[in-house]
């Protein structure tokens, strides 16, 4: 058998198998998308005809829109905060030497390691003790802690490979340390920071397990509202919302090189 035909067969086999894995991965997405067009009052695959009524309902569903607002606010602020803290910490760890540095740095990763149920319980008790109001303060702080490890890891690995000659060059060219950071270091590592912030945003946006302990009556996030709706009756509005979010994401990902690669 010739090289090309055997490699073609191999490729076909791989593509077929990978197609099945993709089908598995995207199965829930497909179902969510399909059910968002149902004519029925509960999530079901459309049988006779499709409708956009749940997209209409979405616009009228004040509770979901409120939750979406809360989710966006919390995700925005916590991703900004964790980007800042994560970047500072990554700088600190990469650019300094002290005993047991690498071991100590795993502490930064603990929030990713420990189950969010435990995080949620620990935080709600703790916030109670220090009288931090539940709602935005608790949610934003909690989500910041939960997403911090992702930013830390991303920025750290960027900084490890960062060529410090660039900073040296900037200094020799006459720039002081602050200018050097603003003009050289910052812009160059910003894709990593942005990617970290993006992941932090996604983590915050989807987090349910710890979040259920941290919400206040006015600040339910989307996943928590969905969970509540589950118990009282889930409507395909949720699916419509999910589809809208997917669309936003796909457009953003295809539109910007930065995010899809990270």
């Amino acid at each position, binding site marked *: 058998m010739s090289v090309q035909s055997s490699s073609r067969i191999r*490729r076909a086999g*791989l593509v077929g198998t*990978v197609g099945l*894995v*993709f089908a*598995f*991965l*995207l*199965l*829930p*997405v497909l*179902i969510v998308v399909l059910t968002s067009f149902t004519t029925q009052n509960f999530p079901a*695959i459309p049988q006779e005809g499709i409708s956009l009524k749940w997209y209409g309902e979405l616009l009228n569903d004040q509770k979901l829109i409120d939750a979406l607002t809360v989710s966006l606010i919390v995700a925005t602020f916590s991703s900004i905060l964790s980007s800042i803290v994560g970047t500072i*910490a990554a700088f*600190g*760890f990469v*650019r300094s030497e*002290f005993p047991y540095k*690498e*071991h*100590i*740095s*795993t502490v*930064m990763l603990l*929030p*990713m*390691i*420990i*189950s969010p*149920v*435990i995080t949620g*319980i*620990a*935080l709600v008790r*703790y916030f109670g*003790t220090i009288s931090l109001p539940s709602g935005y303060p608790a949610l934003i702080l909690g989500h910041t*802690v939960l997403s*911090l490890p992702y930013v830390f*890891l991303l920025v750290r690995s960027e900084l490890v490979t960062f060529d410090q000659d660039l*900073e*040296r060059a900037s*200094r020799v060219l006459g720039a002081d340390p602050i200018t050097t*950071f603003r003009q050289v*270091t910052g812009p160059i590592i910003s894709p990593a920071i942005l990617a970290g912030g993006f992941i932090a945003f*996604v983590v915050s946006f*989807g987090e349910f*397990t710890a979040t259920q*302990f941290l919400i206040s009556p006015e600040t339910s996030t989307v*996943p928590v509202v*969905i969970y509540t709706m*589950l118990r009282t009756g*889930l409507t395909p509005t*949720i699916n419509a919302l999910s589809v809208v979010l*997917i669309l*936003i994401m796909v457009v953003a*990902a*295809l539109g910007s*090189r930065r995010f*899809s*690669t990270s």
Partner: protein
Amino acid sequence: MSTRQSRLRTVTRTVGEQLGGRVGNRHLAALGLGFVGVFFVLPILLLVPESLALGTSAPFQAYSRAMQGIYVNAFVRSFLYGIMTTVATLSLAYLIAYYLAFAARRIRMAMTLVIVPLWIAYIVRYFGILLFFSPAGPLADATGYEPSILFTTPAVVIGLANVYLPFAVLPIYNSLNAIDRELVSASRVLGATNWRTIISVIFPLSLPGLVAAGLIVFILAAGSFLGPAVLGGPKQTMIANVIAQAFLDNFNIQFASALAIIYTVLLVGLLLVFNTAFDLREVLGNI
């Protein structure tokens, strides 16, 4: 001139300098640690006193209760499901990652498809899976076949593997992608078939990514709450469900804290064992 000053003045320590010259980069590390310390480590540590009935005759009563069969089972199940999910997820993720790194023609598109599910709340995805396999769901509708898979261990593992798959693809893809293509050529020229090359060269070189992916999937899966809650039955209860139930349904903060502490200690212990085989720092660096 002292060494300390010299550390501050070296240009490689730029950020410290910009904060007024008195702040070193070590202070920045301390700031990060402080944040995690105050808003994460301390709260977790405070569960220790909560878990103890101090001042009573049986301060460890919550712990001795946790030693009973159903709770031990929940712990065992968490770790077991964690491992099963990890194995399943890694196999699938490896296929996708291999495809992305070596065969994909439209990588951006494929990569986007991998990430798309992350935008749908876990719970909604679990519901998709539940609906799919239900007797009145699309699978039975289309094929007439009703798999009796729901509310069993396979259902939970399938669900967990499904939602954590994207987390595993990325690190594996990164390490596959970093493999110098000339190594693959070299292996072929040295007489190895494509398959032997995958086994002897590509696979070992992708181990860092694989281990990183395995670690993160294991951590996420073992601690998961929604998966068993939606797709499992009573026999699939995992530790996160028990902890949530103790805290939310039974108001037993003491017991919930004890379970949380035990779980954390077990997990950290496990990671330390893991650390003897793989360098945890490196592995986490790959995530």
